């Protein structure tokens, strides 16, 4: 549902059905809503069968990269004699993204169940849910849910009487966006600085504690339960456009829009209708100018691009951007683009772990140049310098935080060059009438 608003009839609420129902947070309330039936079913199946159903469903990772989940699970080789681990990525720090927060604070048991199913499917006895430290409320509900699930014997050394051991532990982060990168998360979980690792080896070979590990986003794991209950075909049918994008997706919407919130729609939903009907359109007297549709790391869309987009992995690429994390940032004509982009660059500069020169220096230079343009002190050469730095920051570093910083800058200059040039030429930004390239 469009939490905190009333659900819109055009939403398809599978994962968000119980948002806003305080009772769904308790074990009893969750069971009344059909909770843990999927886990029970899973424990009666062979792990390989579960992996196949998830593969067949077309579910793709909801953390940003969209990697096919069933395939990721199939990389975990049963019977290799090593302990396997499942990590749930609940670090959610990508600007614009706040869907995992809603999932955990309204349906914490759904995540416990998702972790238990995932762990069983990949042959792991332990799942860690790594939650960012600032999420005090989700942490509270998740800890409570884990405690209740242990007490009821749903997880633990004999999960639901299956004879299988499944432990779920909540691990609290301590403030670092980079710990959402999968290998940085593993380093952090091991008690180290959150520096991303060079890949390969990939986590399925050597992940947390040097053991085979699968890492999935909160929303990905929660989607596994309804898929097991209703079947792969049911999930696959929820697709309005491209068959490679299936199921429902949570989009968290923020910025200059009438009804910010978390909405769940079927893959392929028209973005224009989403923005104007579900989210209520622009604030009174304003117009939309740009959208960053998948969290701060994806290219900025002009309204022309956004309004022609279908909301799935392929659709956002065709519309000049990416689906990313599903964090939709809406920017209206009262906002100077240079200010918006400069602040995003500062975010990345602050969050760079500093291992790679291109990223450590590039994010800082980019920020300084953008801020001086914003302050009316830029030069004509600055735009070329920014594009040049952006190119040097792309595809050359240990993780993609560096690329992520370059993305809004390069796309911003390309699509809103007029605003940059006006500031450089000493013309002030005039809200509402600003030229849109």
């Amino acid at each position, binding site marked *: 549902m469009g939490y905190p608003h009333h659900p819109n009839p055009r939403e398809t609420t599978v994962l968000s059905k119980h948002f806003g129902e305080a009772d769904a947070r308790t074990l009893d309330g969750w069971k009344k809503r059909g909770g843990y039936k999927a886990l029970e079913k899973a424990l009666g199946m062979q792990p390989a069968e579960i992996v196949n159903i998830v593969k067949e469903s077309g579910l793709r990772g909801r953390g940003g990269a969209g990697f096919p989940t069933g395939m990721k699970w199939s990389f975990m080789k049963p019977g290799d004699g090593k302990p396997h681990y499942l990590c749930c990525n609940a670090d959610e720090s990508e600007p614009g993204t706040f869907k995992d927060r809603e999932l955990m604070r309204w349906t914490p048991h759904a995540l416990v169940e998702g972790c238990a199913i995932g762990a069983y499917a990949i042959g792991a006895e332990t799942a860690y849910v790594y939650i960012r430290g600032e999420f*005090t409320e989700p942490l509270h509900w998740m800890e409570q849910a884990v405690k209740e699930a242990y007490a009821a014997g749903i997880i633990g050394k004999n999960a639901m009487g299956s004879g299988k051991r499944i432990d779920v532990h909540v691990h609290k982060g301590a403030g670092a966006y980079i710990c959402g990168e999968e290998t940085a998360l593993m380093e952090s979980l091991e008690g180290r600085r959150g520096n991303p690792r060079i890949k390969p080896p990939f986590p399925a070979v050597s992940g947390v*504690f040097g053991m085979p590990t699968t890492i999935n986003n909160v929303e990905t794991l929660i989607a596994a339960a309804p898929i097991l209950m209703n079947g792969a075909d049911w999930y696959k049918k929820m697709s309005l456009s491209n068959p490679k994008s299936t199921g429902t997706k949570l989009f968290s919407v923020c910025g200059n829009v009438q009804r910010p919130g978390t909405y769940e729609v079927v893959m392929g939903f028209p973005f224009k209708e989403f923005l104007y009907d579900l989210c209520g359109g622009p604030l009174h007297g304003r117009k939309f100018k740009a959208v960053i549709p998948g969290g701060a790391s994806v290219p900025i869309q002009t309204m022309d691009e956004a309004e022609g987009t279908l909301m799935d992995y392929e659709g956002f690429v065709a519309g000049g951007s990416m689906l990313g994390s599903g964090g939709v940032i809406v920017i209206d004509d009262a*906002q100077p683009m240079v200010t918006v982009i400069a602040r995003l660059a500062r975010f990345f500069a602050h969050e760079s772990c500093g291992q790679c020169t291109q990223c450590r220096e590039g994010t800082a230079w980019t920020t300084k140049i953008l801020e001086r343009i914003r302050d009316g002190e830029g030069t004509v050469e600055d735009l070329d310098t920014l594009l040049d730095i952006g190119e040097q920051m792309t595809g050359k570093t240990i993780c993609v935080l560096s690329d992520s910083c370059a993305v809004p800058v390069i796309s911003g200059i390309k699509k809103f060059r007029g605003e940059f040039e006006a500031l450089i030429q000493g013309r002030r930004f005039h809200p509402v009438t600003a030229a849109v390239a």
Partner: protein
Amino acid sequence: MTPDLVGDLESPDYASHDRAAHGPYTPVFTGDVKRELDELLTHYPTKMAALLPALWIVQRVHGWVSEEGMAEVAGLLELTPAYVKGVVTFYTMYHQHPVGKYFIQVCTTSPCGICGAEDVVKALVRDTNTGELGLTSPDGRFTVIEVECLGACGFATPVMVNEEFIESMTPDKVPELLARLP
């Protein structure tokens, strides 16, 4: 690249102000708290993995993580104090010096920025009498800092007061918020 571009980009250094005098260090991990750590250690195959949780406990008990706190944790987890310090300094949420009774974090990343976060910051700095971001008010009650995305962008502007997470803060609501803090 022009040299003036090189250098750090840190926001105001809130660690540099007067470190409040503090008395002799009282160990954290005794009695129930030690048992809490022992239980935590059963969650992981290595002792080191309990480092972040152990540091959280130190901060919960003392309000910040001092060098003595780091040394205590190091001893229990068989790490060196220097290693622990290296980890502490990576993460933004561990306080390496005492902070006000109410530690207030305001998100100013772009999605909140375009919804007026700067005005919330200004109102907070003014009404808490801290004078400047990162400093503690003369009465020791408040420290206000700007932080990056708090993961609640649709509820602009989110503010954290210690462990409490407050959604949709506006400058008008600041006096009411401060008045209700004991």
